[in-house]
């Protein structure tokens, strides 16, 4: 039995090349015969599936419970309203009006407990889907977390996708952008994080935020700088000063941008690229000593 090892590919700033990196890394390792899964955790905008020819395998609906208030039994005591920190229960006791705003409910359970009249019962509320696919041509599976538009947070869908699909071997997680809750929940489930950035003032600013969070969470990480050649060398000075591992520099190349734009894997057009991904994987495994095959 192998120890599960999860690598999250993340970035403070959007559009730095997270999906470019994670999809190519996954394909490089899977084609080598590694036992690897790829989970697209960007549930607001999942799109890693574009890069693979897949066969649908399994669908799982992610739901939560939301309360339904029985107005026959309700005494309009307002206890449930006061217990709800999310303002999901709208109530006008004097007019005997009480209503649950489903979209605001976080399913914490406090209202059921607060009600002394057995007037609150749960109903099922859909949040999103976790779809699993097999990639044609090699072993390995692709998992996609997809949130329904208008849902308050993708976190529950991300958690479910990761919990139910982490393999005994290696799992690569494509993280949502930013450093707020969706990012935190993705990296919290991983043993190592690869941060993708670009050498621009915006890129460096957002990288620093992500680094701060990972240090606080005590998760080891390294950095890949994308589109080197555009921008300046601020990011390299920062990495050196902070003694952060620079895993790879990807040069700016219009051809890469074009391949990516067409949903093609760069490793198919650039011989030797797959070796870069395998070396990065081996470096991480070597340094952190877990999950080695």
């Amino acid at each position: 039995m192998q120890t599960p090892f999860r690598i999250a590919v993340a970035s403070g700033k959007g559009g730095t090349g997270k999906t470019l990196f994670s999809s190519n890394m996954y394909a490089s390792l899977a084609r080598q015969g590694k036992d690897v899964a790829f989970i697209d955790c960007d549930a607001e905008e999942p799109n890693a599936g574009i890069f693979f020819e897949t066969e649908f395998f399994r669908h799982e609906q992610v739901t939560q419970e939301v309360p339904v208030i029985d107005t026959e039994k309700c005494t309009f005591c307002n206890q449930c309203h006061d217990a709800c920190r999310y303002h999901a229960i709208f109530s006008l006791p004097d007019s005997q009006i009480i209503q649950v705003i489903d979209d605001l409910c976080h399913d914490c359970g406090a209202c059921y407990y607060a009600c002394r009249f057995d007037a609150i019962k749960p109903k099922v509320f859909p949040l999103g889907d976790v779809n699993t696919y097999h990639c044609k041509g090699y072993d390995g599976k692709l998992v996609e977390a997809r949130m329904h538009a208008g849902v308050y947070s993708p976190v529950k869908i991300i958690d479910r996708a990761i919990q139910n699909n982490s393999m005994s071997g290696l799992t690569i997680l494509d993280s949502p952008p930013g450093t707020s809750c969706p990012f935190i929940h993705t990296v919290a489930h991983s043993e190592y994080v690869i941060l993708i950035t670009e050498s621009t003032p915006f890129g460096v600013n957002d990288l620093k935020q992500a680094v701060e969070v990972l240090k606080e969470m005590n998760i080891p990480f390294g950095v890949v700088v994308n589109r080197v050649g555009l921008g300046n060398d601020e990011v390299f000075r920062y990495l050196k000063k902070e003694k952060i591992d620079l895993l790879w520099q990807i040069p700016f190349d219009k051809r890469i941008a074009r391949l990516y734009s067409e949903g093609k894997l760069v490793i198919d057009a650039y011989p030797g690229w797959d070796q870069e991904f395998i070396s990065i994987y081996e470096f991480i495994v070597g340094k952190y000593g877990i999950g080695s095959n």
Partner: protein
Amino acid sequence: MAVISGKGGTGKSNLVASLVSMAPSVILADCDVDAANQHILFQPRVSAEETFTGSENAVIDEKKCTHCGICANHCRFGAIQCTPEQTKISDIFCDGCAFCVTVCPEDAISMQKHNKSRLYTGDFRYGEMVYGILAPGEENSGKLVNMVKANARNLARKKQIQNIIIDGPPGLGCPVISSISGTTDVVVVCEPSLTAIHDLERVLSLLEKYKFRVWIVINKFDLNLALARIIENICHDRQVTLAGKIPFDENVVKGMTICKTITEYKPDSPAAKAVSRIYNQIFCDEKMSPL
């Protein structure tokens, strides 16, 4: 007007900055609070700083806790780990519902407010700007977005400025909806890639539920002309106006490294000219109040 994009990194913030640099009087509201960047480019002189208290976290009083485990049994977020010797609440998984505070028989749990997020107002070379910086790991960014917008509106009223340009967040979750609500115009920035087109379709489906005037800008359109054409067809099919196409230009990034927008750095470049045309198309439209 709000500028958003489904996919991140499509050039949304750069477009916003360029539009702002052309407008004679406008208020800039940076609502991408999770990765606010406009203040880096415009280096505003901050005139007001407010603390944003967003979510709350449960904290345990070690002295009172008897490790009975009741809180852990009630927590639906799996945030509480309880052993006979120790009870721990995870900051990461705590959702701030305070259910544990209610059920604790020892009165050992209380809620603590997060107060690391900030809201700033300041003036910069083109006028006034409001921006929010969300502390890492914070939730409720929609609330901070609403505060940024409320401050921008108050400022606009005080200074009698008609137009507010909002730099919105990527994605299509709660902060995006907060950013666009109450605006008249929404500009969606897209680039010609399959991933960005996929995200664009999701954003447009969301926007269809509301009554905005929607504009699309294709950034770096010449990186893939065939896909740029597909975006144009989407505009046509969905009856959304194409505000313009911006060619790829390394000068955009070069300018950014010295804190200049493309219209400031290379005003004669094809990219800057494209941005000017977009500006005219959107702001000189008769329905929008002229600047």
